[in-house]
């Protein structure tokens, strides 16, 4: 490259060149600036959060209560109707489209097998034309802008892939990695064809990583035809294996023909203009014909870098453990606040929370969460969490069970009694015993942490989560209608519930990890038992959270 600059005017050279340099920021930047400058217009995102939380609450609510089964049945009925309709429509579509099952890796595997056996004369042909675009930003890998690629073994082990130019875009990207190459093809019922024995249409082709090479292909081609078998001379350019036969025999079965072949001659001069190596190992470097191609490729590579780094540094994993103390509050179900004189003669209208002797017990929470730094002061998080809660009721165990009853609500919200026998008495008995109401829960906490204060080493956060919860197992002792006995019964357990968590914590940075410690409050939004039972139980956990976070 000729340059008018030399070392003597180095600073001027740098200024001139860097002044010419421009980059176009992503939309995200402007949106963030806009949100910062016009906080009043942030409502869409806040409202989205509210909608999300409401949706979660609704899901929890729908899975709660006496109508749960009926609702579930309705949902199932609707789902089956929709599924049936979709199935029918798919079948109709399926009739109109061909069913091409063409995986390019299969073709490559065939060629590779032929190479390994040494019994064939595998020819890999690649013809390039200028009607499409290819880029490769790794020095050892590039592809021509548009190509007809034909893999051609001898006899039956042949396969050809022809990518001809059309109006839509075919993009294939091979990135460095350890996985074998996989090209998946999505079908499209458009008017395209597949020559040979298989016929079908393709719209998207993607190629997964191939060994240590990076290949990126973008082309305007769309039609792929697979010919099986294909004649050797069909290809525009022939390519022969770069390595000798011995090397080929020693090649791994996983070796891909694309990586071991290079074009050596061109049969059709018209197609030869931008003829380039498809891809090679480090020894078979790519050649790029013109400076304009190179400029285009590098320009493309510059402005189309992999988007995977977008998340880098913003995602982190957190593992945490929270020992807690569990309290509970009992309420009379609102539908049954005053049941005196309504026919349920055993019902005690006293405050149920006072009528029982109860003691808080311990609980435990542990989980993993994925956190995303949405803003500098706001982290979004979601995860999976296990909870153990326990609450003790002080009772007496009798030698012989006695008859007792519990008050339930009918579907019409009218109270009625069912009778049970139980050895546990609330007030009088022989042996004092502690009854453990306990649950094992699986939760999906979703929430956010807000940074309130920060220095280099320590930060102070406040956070909240909403936790859809599934109760995996529980021990439940129900208080009888007259409040004199406890009855063990799990049949009215609310399997799905929702909890809300609130916490504040200090965050300390150490080498590579961040520690969090602070108090936490978790409250159960719906009752432990469903609406049939006339007493509502709400659990509250007061805990101390210890967490460790690592950036991904």
């Amino acid at each position, binding site marked *: 490259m000729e*340059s008018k600059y030399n070392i003597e005017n180095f600073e001027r050279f740098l200024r001139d060149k860097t002044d010419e340099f421009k980059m176009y920021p992503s939309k995200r930047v402007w949106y963030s600036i806009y949100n910062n400058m016009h906080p009043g217009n942030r409502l869409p995102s806040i409202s989205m959060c509210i909608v999300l939380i409401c949706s979660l609450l609704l899901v929890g609510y729908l899975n709660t209560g006496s109508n749960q089964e009926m609702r579930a049945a309705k949902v199932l009925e609707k789902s089956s109707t929709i599924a049936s309709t979709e199935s029918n429509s798919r079948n109709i579509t399926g009739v109109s489209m061909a069913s091409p099952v063409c995986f390019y890796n299969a073709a490559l595997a065939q060629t590779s097998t032929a190479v390994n056996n040494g019994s064939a004369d595998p020819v890999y042909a690649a013809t390039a034309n200028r009607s499409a675009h290819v880029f490769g930003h790794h020095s050892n890998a590039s592809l021509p802008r548009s190509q007809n690629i034909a893999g051609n073994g001898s006899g039956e082990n042949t396969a050809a892939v022809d990518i001809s130019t059309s109006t839509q875009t075919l993009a294939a990207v091979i990135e460095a990695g350890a996985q074998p190459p996989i090209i998946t093809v999505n079908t499209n019922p458009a008017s395209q064809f597949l020559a040979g024995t298989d016929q079908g249409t393709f719209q998207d082709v993607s190629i997964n990583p191939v060994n240590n090479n990076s290949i990126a292909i973008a082309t305007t081609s769309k039609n792929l035809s697979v010919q099986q078998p294909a004649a050797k001379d069909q290809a525009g350019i022939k390519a022969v294996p770069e390595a000798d036969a011995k090397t080929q025999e020693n090649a791994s079965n996983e070796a891909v023909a694309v990586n071991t072949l290079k074009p050596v001659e061109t049969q059709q001069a018209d197609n030869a203009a931008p003829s380039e190596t498809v891809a090679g190992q480090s020894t078979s470097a790519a050649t790029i014909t013109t400076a304009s191609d190179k400029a285009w490729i*590098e320009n493309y590579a510059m402005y189309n870098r992999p988007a995977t780094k977008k998340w880098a540094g913003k995602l982190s994993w957190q593992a945490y453990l929270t020992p807690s103390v569990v309290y509970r509050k009992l309420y009379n179900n609102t539908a049954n606040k005053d049941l005196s004189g309504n026919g349920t003669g055993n019902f005690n209208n006293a405050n149920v929370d006072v009528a029982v002797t109860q003691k808080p017990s311990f609980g435990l929470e542990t989980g993993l969460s994925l956190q995303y730094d949405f803003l500098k002061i706001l982290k979004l998080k979601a995860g999976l969490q296990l909870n153990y809660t326990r609450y003790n009721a002080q009772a007496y165990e009798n030698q012989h069970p006695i008859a007792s009853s519990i008050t339930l609500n009918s579907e019409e919200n009218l109270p009625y009694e069912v009778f049970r026998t139980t050895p546990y008495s609330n007030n009088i008995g022989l042996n004092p015993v502690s009854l453990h109401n306990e649950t094992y829960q699986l939760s999906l906490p979703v929430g956010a942490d807000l940074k309130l204060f920060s220095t280099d080493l320590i930060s102070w956060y406040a956070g909240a989560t909403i936790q859809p919860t599934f109760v995996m197992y529980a021990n439940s002792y129900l208080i009888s209608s007259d409040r004199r006995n406890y009855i063990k019964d799990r049949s009215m357990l609310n399997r799905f519930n929702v909890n809300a968590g609130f916490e504040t914590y200090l965050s300390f940075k150490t080498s590579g990890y961040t520690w969090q410690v602070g108090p936490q409050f978790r409250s159960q939004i719906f009752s432990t038992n469903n609406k049939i039972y006339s007493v509502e139980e709400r659990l509250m956990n007061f805990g101390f959270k210890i967490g460790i976070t690592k950036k991904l």
Partner: protein
Amino acid sequence: MTEEQMLAGCLQNDAASQDALYSRHSPRMLGVCYRFAKNREDAEDMLQEGFIKVFSQIHQYRNEGALEGWIRRIMVHTCINSLKKNKKFSDSVDISFAGGIGIREEAIPSIMQAKEVVECIRVLPLGYRTVLNLYAIEGYSHKEIGIMLDIEESTSRSQYTRAKTMLEDILIKKKILQKPKEKTTPVAAAI
């Protein structure tokens, strides 16, 4: 929209004017941030922070110089503050002891023209790159750089000399810069 209209709109916190100002200056300013930042994402974060400062402090602009120059100074200061805030800045390269760092030739990117020059600058160690950006491109004096980076003026000078040497080598290897022609001395000419 003229620059005066944009300024008047920005003073009234008008979103359309801010958008116009941002659209006009953001590509070049992102280029500035990119030279300081570790990657594109960091550069966009710096750009975002810088433009928020621009819009919130636009009333301080006195029309005494080019608006682009004023924005550029805010961007540079934002970049420096961002680098200082990031602990990795002090961990990765101690600006006073970066002398022994070498550049592998294969790390030199192959990007054309201005992009190539910028990418070559970004190959330099962070400390070198920062001083070189500030002195050679942004036009700050070594004294100002010393204050900005909390280093001695002499340190800035020596770091710049080393950065320049390293960058020259890279650019000459890439054939972007030409070696100075050897001047023949009168004695040699006589011989």
